[in-house]
């Protein structure tokens, strides 16, 4: 799905989390929102997901105004920073949650839900863990379960807030490839937040560099390296 962000602004009290920002994300792209702490990455992602609403500006999905759509109507697969798995539910129940929450007419049969959950567990390469609780999983496993849970609702896009933030270096590398693979097999427009420039450059088709609520530059990794638009971008990419 093609996402258009048109002059979005957001303030919290007196801090301007987002100066008016505009951004066009082509359908099927894997995009990194890159920037230092407090630059407004999470705020932008949450506005796309419908968890936060902008003071001004519009969001367009495939050319249709989506600014007023509720979280539920957005159908965005959201992976939270600490995964936010439901701690009182098993992995299976976590992944099935979105399907069971559908209105009756659209809700799959019980067997169909089970079949889909099993398939998603295979997709994230953890076919055996359906019966476990989140507390019994490693950090990397939790991240993949969160991804599967987001994918279960057949989302229109994937939004991930620092999906690799809480993991050690080795697991990070593995899961990067995992995300790339899942992006390529599903073809979903995917936006992930990171403050690790290496991660953004290696993984993303398109990198959006942010600073202090502004978008500094948007471009393919190679272009950003070759032609940084500002001293900030150059310094941030070499850091």
């Amino acid at each position, binding site marked *: 799905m093609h996402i258009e962000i048109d002059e979005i602004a957001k303030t919290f009290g007196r801090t301007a989390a987002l100066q008016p920002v505009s951004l066009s994300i082509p359908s099927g792209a894997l995009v990194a929102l890159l920037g230092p702490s407090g630059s407004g990455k999470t705020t932008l992602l949450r506005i796309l997901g419908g968890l936060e609403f902008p003071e001004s500006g519009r969001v367009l999905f495939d050319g249709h105004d989506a600014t007023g759509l509720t979280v*539920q109507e957005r159908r965005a*697969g*959201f992976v*939270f920073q600490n995964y936010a798995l439901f*701690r009182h539910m098993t992995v299976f129940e976590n992944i099935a*949650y979105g399907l069971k*929450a559908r209105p009756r007419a659209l809700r799959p049969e019980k067997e169909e839900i089970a079949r889909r959950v099993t398939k998603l567990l295979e997709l994230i390469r953890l076919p055996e863990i359906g019966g476990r609780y*989140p507390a019994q999983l490693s950090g990397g496993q939790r991240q993949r379960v969160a991804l599967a849970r*987001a994918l279960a609702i057949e989302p229109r896009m994937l939004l991930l807030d620092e999906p690799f933030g809480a993991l050690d270096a080795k697991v990070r590398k593995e899961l990067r490839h995992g995300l790339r693979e899942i992006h390529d097999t599903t073809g979903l427009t995917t936006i992930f937040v990171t403050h690790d420039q290496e991660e953004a450059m290696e993984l993303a088709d398109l990198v959006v560099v942010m600073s202090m609520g502004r978008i500094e530059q948007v471009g393919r990794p190679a272009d950003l390296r070759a032609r940084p638009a500002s001293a900030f971008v150059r310094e941030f990419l070499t850091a």
Partner: protein
Amino acid sequence: MFDAAHLAPPRPARRFRAATEEPAALRRGLIGLVFVLLAVLLFAPLVTVFGEALSQGAGAALTALAEPEAHAAIRLTLLVTALSVPLTAVFGLAAGWAIARFDFPGKAVLITLIDLPFSVSPVVAGLCLVLLFGANTTLGDWLVGQGMPVVFALPGIVLATVFVTFPFVAREILPVMVEQGRAEEEAALTLGASGWRMFFTVTLPNIRWALLYGVLLATARAMGEFGAVAVVSGKIRGVTATVPIAIEMLYNEYLTVAAFSLAALLASLALVTLALKTALEWRHADALSANRRA
């Protein structure tokens, strides 16, 4: 060959005392004092209550409980508890939710207000209800005209009980809700759940033990409340006398066995809640403490 030095007994290591560690004698003294106090203040009265109740045999005690007046008091107390505890739970949930999830002007005031019933004397609370709803006020007049008297009737007793028990639920769930944050709830919403579905499948299960704990505390208090209820109920024998009030009236009339039988019943109910509460603390300590790790 053995070296004699190796066989020498090791020197006793010098014992260092932690800064917070008290001398053993003081420690034992303090612990002993606590036990003595507990024995005098809690255990002895409890034994006396049961002793007095059973002083003329279990039969006499049971007969006293079967008296119409005692019966009416027990029924009233159960009814008041059954009505006020759910109200307390709902108000507590609403307050806990509002404070934990939203920022709004006057939040600090609301947090203070929750604790108000802890610091205001129940008698004062009861008097306030009488002043507000009493027969000589416009509101009270109107309510009596509608056939819905509040003071000296069930609604007043329930209101007074809700006032007194209100903080228990709110206080228990507030820290748990704050600690758990919004993330799981937001996840439910992004997965398509409605607000109600989110509440029943995510919010409520996460706070269920804290909620139950608060409800238990509120129940114990609701059954035992005397001061506020004494003022609003008017102590009408067999009509608005709850168990604690009936106990007082019987005792004042030197009906010792009857008074103590009711008191023993109330104490037993309190002991049951205490046991349930302890079991809950024991089994779900992690879910009750606000510092639980994810």
